[in-house]
């Protein structure tokens, strides 16, 4: 079932010599609290708020705005009533009226849907049996979010109606925690997930799309919705030999990383006739030194030109994704940034890179104008 490596040319690994294409400078540093920050994310859903980002850490969700000259302004802060909650992930979404929503999830397994317009909790999604490791929003239909959980399932939710539409789990599902999940940028039916079973699985919801459509017009109780189980992925890839903690689509290719100090770009080659089978072609590798602990995620700018990833020592590597061989745009080093960076956020055009660290700090790096 698992995809095999295809014979072909060796993958191209990028050189770690910085190209100095762009230079970044620290413009702000913020101590949010003492608890580790696990996620930081720009709002790419609504063009009015491209400079708004959110962080999560502990039982707190904070919304900030990036202003000119390296200024970071706090807009909103939400504290979960359960002080044992520890949020691991957040994603921007919106309802069909276009109100900005922020969906956060963590150790409790409950997803909080925050209506940032009215500054209230709009809904809480229960259903996951364990912690939620990542939430992502469908950019083409931004009231659809998908969540990856320790309970070995991936679930598709409609934040507008509060419905759990599909559950990607079962016979062909993940066999350990799911750590990351991502929507295909153009194929609305397709998602990829990866996790502690060392595999990346690609799922199709084409056969179940009627249910997704149904979820938008559902007026009855959410618990009466015929939630479906998608038990078999269309593709399973064993690229890595350890936990796969982040995956993102780059067109039809996939970027994924494990604890092997690199991000891998590969192409899933599916056989049309027999789903689940296929081969993998590894195209490129983006080395990231000292990135050998799990739960470090990378971020990309809106157009997926660059990817920024932090490492265990507080350094950030910014890679040009779409050039071959890959080019290291910049290496962001600051003597005071020593704490592991769990997640970065790259702004719409890549000119600002934010990082959130285990020591509870947020760093802002801005590209220098002259370069």
């Amino acid at each position, binding site marked *: 079932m698992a995809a095999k490596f295809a014979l072909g040319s060796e993958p191209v690994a990028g050189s770690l010599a910085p190209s100095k294409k762009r230079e970044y400078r620290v413009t702000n540093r913020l101590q949010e609290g003492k608890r580790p920050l696990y996620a930081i994310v720009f709002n790419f859903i609504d063009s009015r708020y491209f400079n708004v980002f959110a962080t999560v850490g502990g039982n707190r969700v904070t919304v900030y705005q990036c202003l000119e000259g390296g200024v970071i302004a706090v807009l909103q802060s939400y504290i979960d009533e359960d002080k044992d909650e520890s949020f691991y992930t957040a994603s921007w979404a919106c309802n069909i009226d276009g109100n900005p929503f922020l969906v956060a999830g963590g150790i409790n397994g409950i997803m909080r849907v925050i209506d940032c317009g009215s500054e209230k909790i709009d809904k809480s999604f229960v259903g996951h049996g364990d912690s939620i490791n990542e939430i992502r929003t469908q950019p083409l239909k931004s009231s659809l979010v998908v969540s990856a959980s320790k309970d070995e399932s991936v679930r598709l939710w409609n934040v507008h109606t509060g419905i*759990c539409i599909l559950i990607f789990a079962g016979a062909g599902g993940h066999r350990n925690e799911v750590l990351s999940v991502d929507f295909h940028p153009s194929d609305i039916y397709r998602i990829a997930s990866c996790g502690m079973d060392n595999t990346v699985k690609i799922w199709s919801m084409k056969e179940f799309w009627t249910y997704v459509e149904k979820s938008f017009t559902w007026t009855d109780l959410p618990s009466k919705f015929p939630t479906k189980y998608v*038990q078999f992925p269309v593709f399973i890839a064993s690229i890595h030999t350890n936990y796969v903690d982040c995956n993102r689509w780059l067109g039809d290719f996939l970027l994924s990383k494990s604890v092997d100090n690199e991000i891998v770009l590969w192409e899933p080659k599916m056989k049309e006739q027999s789903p689940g089978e296929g081969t993998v072609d590894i195209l490129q590798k983006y080395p990231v030194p000292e990135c050998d602990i799990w739960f470090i995620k990378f971020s990309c700018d809106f157009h997926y030109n660059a990817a920024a990833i932090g490492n265990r020592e507080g350094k950030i590597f910014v890679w040009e994704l779409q050039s071959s061989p890959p080019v290291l745009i910049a290496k962001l080093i600051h003597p005071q940034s020593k704490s592991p960076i769990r997640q970065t956020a790259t702004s719409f055009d890549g000119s600002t890179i934010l990082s959130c660290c285990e020591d509870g700090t947020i760093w802002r790096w801005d590209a220098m104008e002259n370069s």
Partner: protein
Amino acid sequence: MCRQDSRVRMSAEEEMAAEESLSIYCKPVEFYNILQRRAIRNPSFLQRCLSYKIEAKHKRRIQMTVSISRNEKEGVQTQNLFPLYVFLARLVPDVAVPEYSATYRFSRACMLSNSTGVDGSSQLQANFILPDINKLALEAKSGSLAILFVSFVGAQNPFRGINLSKGPVDMASFPSNAGGYCLWSQIPLELLYISWENSPNFVLGQRAEMISTIDMHSCFLKLSCLNEDKCLMIATPYNPETVILSQQLQVTISAEEFGAREKSLYNTYTRSDIPSTLLSHIIRLRAGNVIFNYRYYNNTLQRTEVTEDFSCPFCLVRCASFKGLRHHLCSSHDLFNFEFWVTEEYQAVNVSVKIDNWRSEIVADGVDPKLQVFFSCSKPLRRRRPKNLYQSLKHVHPHVLQSDLPAGLCDLSDKADDAHSSKGDKARISGVSSSLPQSCADPGCVQSISGNNFAPPAMLLFAKTRKLSVERSDPRNCALLRKRQFFHSHRAQPMTLEQVLSDQDSEDEVDDDVADFEDRRMLDDFVDVTKDEKQMMHMWNSFVRKQQVLADGHIPWSCEAFSRLHGHDLVRAPALIWCWRLFMIKLWNHGLLDARSMNNCNIILEQCQGQASDPKS
């Protein structure tokens, strides 16, 4: 036999209540009496086996064990004596064989050896079963029985080459004539008998052990097996060279009543004020006595009954031992709770009625059992009014002892029982069969297949809708359901109270849409099947799953329903209709579909065809 426990003083009112609570014994006892009456005519196999065992047990026998003491000092010498043969033999008084001084007849020989046998074990003791001590007295006095010890040391073993593995030597393999020089000795049984008779413990059924040293003398032994008679002939040797061979051997002979190992604490009853001769009699008398304490009135009162010979008070079956009684009660009378205990003073069983486990067999008073549905068992037992009390109490006593109804009456009530049960069975069967035409006639049943399952399907054939009426009707259960949040078992979504309390139970439902999807995917994997065949297979699989066609007997119905449901699609696609017909023929080949049903299906299809060609009708 029953006596009231008078420890508690009670008011008249309390006594009434207590009496009433005793009446809960009536129904189960009555029930077991019915069963017992049936068993009289047709005893179960186990009971017949058991009565043989009881008889065998009542024959008292002695098990004698002869073993060789392994003395350290003489170890080496004793070693030399192995293999040693032990015989329980009878002296033949007048055999005219002049060379031999004595002739013994025996039936069984045991070989003792210290060398490890083929199977890795060595036999160091010989067991013999002797008759009861009273019968043994006669034998012993005659002085003819003796235990013989024979060892071939150095001499040629006449038994060599015969089956000498271990244990009782197979006599059939003995050569008819064998002989040789050996060492031999004998212990007359009379000696043993006297020692046993004088042992007070042995008379009380305990173990008696005797150690004696015997001298082994040299002799010439001849073994002859003629006409089933196995004889040992012994001659004192005339050859003086062999006389020097003489050895001492220490043997332990222990004896106890056969089966004494299984005895419980109760059997070790001792009383110093009773003479031992009487005591043994008492012990024998009381061995099978079991006290039954019937607890009632919240276990505060009890009635006591004593049964003899380990018999069950409900069905009078003799159970041979207390252990047997225990197994019998637990397995055959599980409407009661039993507590067992054994002390030196008594062996007792405490009985109480299981209140939580009312069966449908036990029907409350005032309810006609024939009107009862057989499998509804949730009806709580109604409390009886005191009016019925004495009448029902009367039931308890005779049942415990013996059913003294005349045989005719017995039969009559038996018949009534049978009629009752068979009617119940019939009702059940008809319940199933009547559901078939019903669902057939209901057009909704087939309609639901085409619809998706967003809305709960209007009809599901056999088991899909389960009424939870018991829970719903019980206000206490309802309150419990209201207390906490419930989540849907498939979707893990919180449920509203309305949903929790509704009739819908989808716990074990198969998601038909997903199952259809999986089925189609599975069929897609076939390469040697045409597209139409795949579609036919898919339609049938999906139909069978949704209608829960499980048994062979469902097939005729399902074929007709399938024809009715898909008829219009089938007649439009000739390839499909041929697939369907071939499939029906296949079913007919396997004997699953009868010709009439197949004909019905074809009539249905023809009607569809007619409608298709003439759209106006």
